């Protein structure tokens, strides 16, 4: 199933003074896709988003939206809308005025705006909240208003800059599902930014992992997870062990590290540390050559003691060769 390309980034470069933020980003995004730009802070994902929105101009490269080069187009003239990290709701306008702002700018007749706003409030489950001020809303509600305010303009691409970052874990999980549902319903292309790999895996059709201004790998979640191309991706998405042997580097997921018993357990290792976090027991081993390997298991495992020794190993297919970028 081949879909239309809605947005294309070609060789985007950007420097702020002495620091290079983006060194040549190439990315094609399909219509109706939910794509996530994933990376730690300072990797250039927000700058990429701001360049798509027009809030930043690239030093070189092109932004092509629906076949048209919009690189030099002003942000207010782009059919693209953004959900800002801190929501950026106008504090002195009501919820309804906030949502209707973009329509008012485009001189849509007042009754139509009111109808559209009502529809949006329903969509984000905030019926009856139209006359409230943003200050009277909770974080999750503000989040929904910010989404409604962007979506109402029917943008060709919706940009979301870590929109769930300020919410607590429980609410975040709930909003992840809601956002995904909303995206399916609207069929709009979503470009989503996060530093949370779990969130990215949960929501996205495709994940683009960024690191130090470079797009390391773009692909479906399971592709990125099981077949990382670089050691950085392997480490960042699901925290894999990187084992270096000779000139090659291999990524081994912690849950795939076998301990005792299994025939693959051929390597002598010292148990350095045991810790328990998030329902998982994590055991840190040190191999004879000094490299460290972490294994993870659900539940508590009493057999292995800190300071002891044991044999560990993994199935050959679980050691994925990756490009070593020193991470």
């Amino acid at each position, binding site marked *: 199933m081949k879909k239309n390309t809605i947005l294309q980034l070609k060789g985007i470069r950007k420097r702020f003074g002495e620091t290079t933020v983006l060194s040549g980003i190439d990315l094609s995004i399909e219509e109706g896709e939910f794509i996530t730009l994933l990376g730690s802070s300072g990797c250039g994902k927000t700058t990429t988003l701001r360049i798509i*929105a*027009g*809030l930043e101009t690239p030093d070189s490269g092109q932004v092509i939206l629906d076949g048209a080069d919009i690189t030099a187009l*002003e*942000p*207010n*003239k782009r059919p*693209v*809308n*953004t959900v*800002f*990290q*801190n929501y*950026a*709701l*106008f504090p*002195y306008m009501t919820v309804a005025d906030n949502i209707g*702002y*973009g329509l008012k*700018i*485009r001189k849509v007749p007042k009754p139509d705006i009111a109808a559209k706003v009502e529809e949006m409030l329903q969509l984000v489950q905030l019926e009856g909240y139209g006359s409230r*001020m943003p*200050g*009277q*809303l*909770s974080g999750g*509600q503000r989040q929904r208003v910010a989404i409604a*305010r*962007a979506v109402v*303009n029917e943008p060709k691409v919706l940009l979301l800059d870590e929109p769930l970052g300020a919410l607590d874990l429980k609410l975040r999980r709930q909003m992840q599902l809601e956002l995904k549902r909303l995206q399916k319903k609207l069929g709009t292309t979503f470009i989503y930014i996060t530093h949370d790999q779990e969130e990215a895996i949960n929501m996205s059709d495709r994940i683009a992992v960024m690191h130090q201004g470079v797009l390391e790998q773009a692909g479906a979640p399971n592709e990125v997870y099981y077949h990382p191309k670089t050691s950085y991706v392997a480490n960042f998405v699901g925290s894999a062990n990187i084992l270096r042997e000779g000139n090659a580097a291999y990524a081994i997921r912690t849950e795939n590290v076998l301990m005792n018993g299994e025939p693959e357990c051929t390597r002598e290792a010292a148990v350095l540390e045991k810790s328990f976090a998030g329902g998982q027991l994590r055991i840190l081993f040190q191999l004879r050559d000094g490299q460290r390997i972490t294994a993870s298991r659900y539940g508590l495992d009493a057999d292995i003691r800190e300071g002891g020794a044991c044999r560990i190993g993994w199935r050959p297919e679980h050691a994925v060769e990756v490009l070593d970028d020193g991470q």
Partner: protein
Amino acid sequence: MKTKKWPFAYVGIITAITYIPILLTVVYSFNASKISSVWGGFSLEWYRELFRDRDLGEALVNSLILAFLSCLSAAVVGTTGALGMYRWKSRLNDAVAMVSMLPIMIPEIILGMVFLSVFSLMNLPFGMLTLVIAHTAFCIPYVYSMVSTRLVGMDKSLEEAALDLGASPFRVFWDVTFPTILPGILSGVMLAFAMSFDDVVISIFVTGSKVNTLPVKIYTKLKTGVTPEVNALAAVMLAVTIALIAASAAVGNWTNRSERRQIKSQEKENV
């Protein structure tokens, strides 16, 4: 830590002392005796005299016109200046901003002296024009710094959000920037108005012989002798001041209450 009573007592006593001279002028404005130390019974004589005094009335009008014009020009110059310097940062801007603050940092007498000598060099006729220029000079810093503070504290993403939603740069200014800086402009202008309306030192030097401001007039009256009508004037001005402050406090209280209501409803939702 336990709350102690004596800090309150200290603050209370000092505050009370600062009110003594003000209250005395009010009390003595109703004194029938011309000699201020003797209580000669209740009288409204000085108020009658005050309202008959054409010179004082004229001086009051002059002071109001002066304060209005200086605040207006300071509002324009200070606001555009703050906006311009926020948009474009440079060393030159910092230097200009620093020099523009000088009028409220150096002693007033220097400013008065400077303006007197420059205006006479330029052969400007002393009067309302020279007064407005001099007052604008010390009004600008109040507006400029209040507006700058608002701009620095402004959430930049609000402007970006408006732009993102299709607003032209002019619309962005009108819908986002202006409402943000408006409280700064207003409080700067209010402060500037008070300073202009109260200024003696600078006005004395640039007022010339034809135009008198109220403070200059009061100063000459006080220098020449005892005039109990100044008591009446003091009482009237105090009443106006308190009324204005009470009005602005009432407005403030009203907004506070609605804010509090907002917070309360928010709390309810979070429960």
